[in-house]
């Protein structure tokens, strides 16, 4: 394993290289005379970054959009993860349920959110829960897939050791299945977190309630107004949030679980 400092430098250098290449492409108009609209310079993006928060869109700062979205995102993410856990858990206890749920996961994961929108609206009405539902839809299936497959492929002996001491059903799940699949679960969390973001953005792009506008709407507006620099600046915000979660939260969990237990290198 590398030491932390070296790793940090490597990552910083890579990002720097990316930024430099971007800047060259932008400044030299490598892709034609109008390409600065697609490749704005770093300076433009940096200004857009500030403007996003200071001016925002429709008189509302990007903060507000982020807050609106984060609320829905987190609700959707937690519900999605929670439901994935519940259903995957029931699947482990009940083989019939497993067969059905496994099929359901394979099927539902294929369905694009857009196509579900009319059904969702008719059931939930015009409500922020529509967005939450679409976020759940993008999180629950991949997360369940990780859980279902994880539950099936850790060493059988842990289950036996668990049953040995009287664990059954629910207690076996929390006592053995969950800790034994922590690696799968964390991997699923990383994917689920990314899914939730993408689900949120695309949901907010196809369905938006103006009274609580979200980051997807913001991006959409900036796109419509050809403010690509603002779009990239917003993506950077998303990336920063994403990286904080990845390295601040998930990595810390990893360090205190699978790494500490010697279950991951």
């Amino acid at each position, binding site marked *: 394993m590398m030491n932390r400092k070296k790793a940090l430098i490597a990552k910083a250098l890579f990002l720097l290289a990316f930024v430099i290449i971007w800047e060259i492409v932008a400044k030299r108009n490598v892709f034609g005379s109008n390409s600065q609209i697609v490749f704005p310079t770093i300076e433009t993006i940096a200004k857009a970054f500030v403007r996003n928060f200071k001016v925002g869109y429709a008189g509302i700062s990007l903060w507000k959009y982020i807050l609106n979205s984060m609320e829905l995102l987190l609700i959707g993410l937690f519900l999605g993860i929670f439901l994935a856990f519940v259903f995957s858990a029931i699947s482990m206890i009940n083989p019939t349920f497993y067969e059905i749920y496994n099929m359901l996961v394979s099927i539902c994961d294929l369905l694009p959110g857009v196509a579900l929108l009319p059904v969702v609206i008719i059931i939930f009405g015009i409500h922020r829960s529509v967005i939450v539902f679409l976020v759940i839809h993008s999180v629950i299936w991949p997360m369940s897939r990780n859980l279902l497959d994880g539950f099936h492929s850790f060493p059988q002996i842990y289950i036996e050791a668990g049953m040995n001491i009287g664990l059954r059903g629910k207690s076996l799940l929390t006592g053995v299945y969950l800790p034994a699949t922590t690696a799968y679960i964390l991997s699923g969390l990383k994917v689920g977190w990314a899914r939730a973001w993408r689900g949120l953005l695309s949901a907010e792009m196809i369905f938006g309630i103006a009274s609580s506008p979200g980051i997807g709407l913001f991006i959409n507006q900036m796109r*419509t107004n*050809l403010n690509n620099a603002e779009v990239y600046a917003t993506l950077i915000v998303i990336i920063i949030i994403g990286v904080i979660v990845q390295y601040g939260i998930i990595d810390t969990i990893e360090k205190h679980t699978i790494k500490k237990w010697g279950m991951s290198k």
Partner: protein
Amino acid sequence: NEAKEETAEETKTETKKIAIAYQYGLAYAPVIIVKEKGLMEEAYKNLTGNELQVEWVQMSSGADINNGIASGEIDAGFMGIGPAMTGISKGLNYKVFTNISGQEHGMMSNDAAIASLGDLVGTENQIALVNIGSIQHIILAKALAENGYDAHALDANIVAMKHPDGMASLESGAVKCHLTSSPYIFYEHDNANLYEIKEVHEAWGQDKSFIVGIASTELNSDAELYQALCDSFVAAIDLINNNVNEAAALTCDFNGNTAEVEADYLQRGVYSTETNGLFEMLQFMQDNDFCDKNITSYSELVFDNVKGN
């Protein structure tokens, strides 16, 4: 062998290639006619004797097309007047080369108690329309302004969703109002349970420009190619205006209608190469924060051949 390759290359250079981005729908009927009948290729051949190869690219929004043009990969495209003016004011090197159509817009309500905009302002009743900042939103703002309200008075009431979803939401009662365009407005007119809020239709009728064609200045500088482009649209729009049944037969499949219905719908729109209200709309947008303020004349919006205002 080498010689063969060379001749192959030569014949290739004679075939001109351009990429045109388009969207689907009734309002784009002339585009479909040009595309399906190969009108542009034909016009180019008539003018120069050379082949033209058009790569038709379907994109889902004016914003995407604008980016495509910015990238230099798209030479011409068709979009609502909103994104077109946004693009020009952003300094994209294109202008309008033809008007395409004007369409009917209207706002329908499923509540008889809502008869005018005044019944909505200050309430929490939701209005479905296709997107915030979309042409439908601007028309709503214009209607508000013309009736003495603040242009943004109903902004918070908007729920953004696509036309079919909006229609389903209106009919199922999930929203109170739906501001939409043809053909959805026709369906909603046919529904006896829905009531129209007239101010919207009055603010921007089908006689006004709605969809335009834009071409890059580069394309414009290739005189023959540009001519072919313009000619083909004159021909397509003529066909709709003079032989609606033939036009309908060409486009009905794309819009999922029978030929008769399609012909009826086509006749309810206004297909013309001449713009109407383009600059007026731009000024309204500039005055009400729908786009940047930097265009001061009609001629900045259109190429010289385009007539109208």
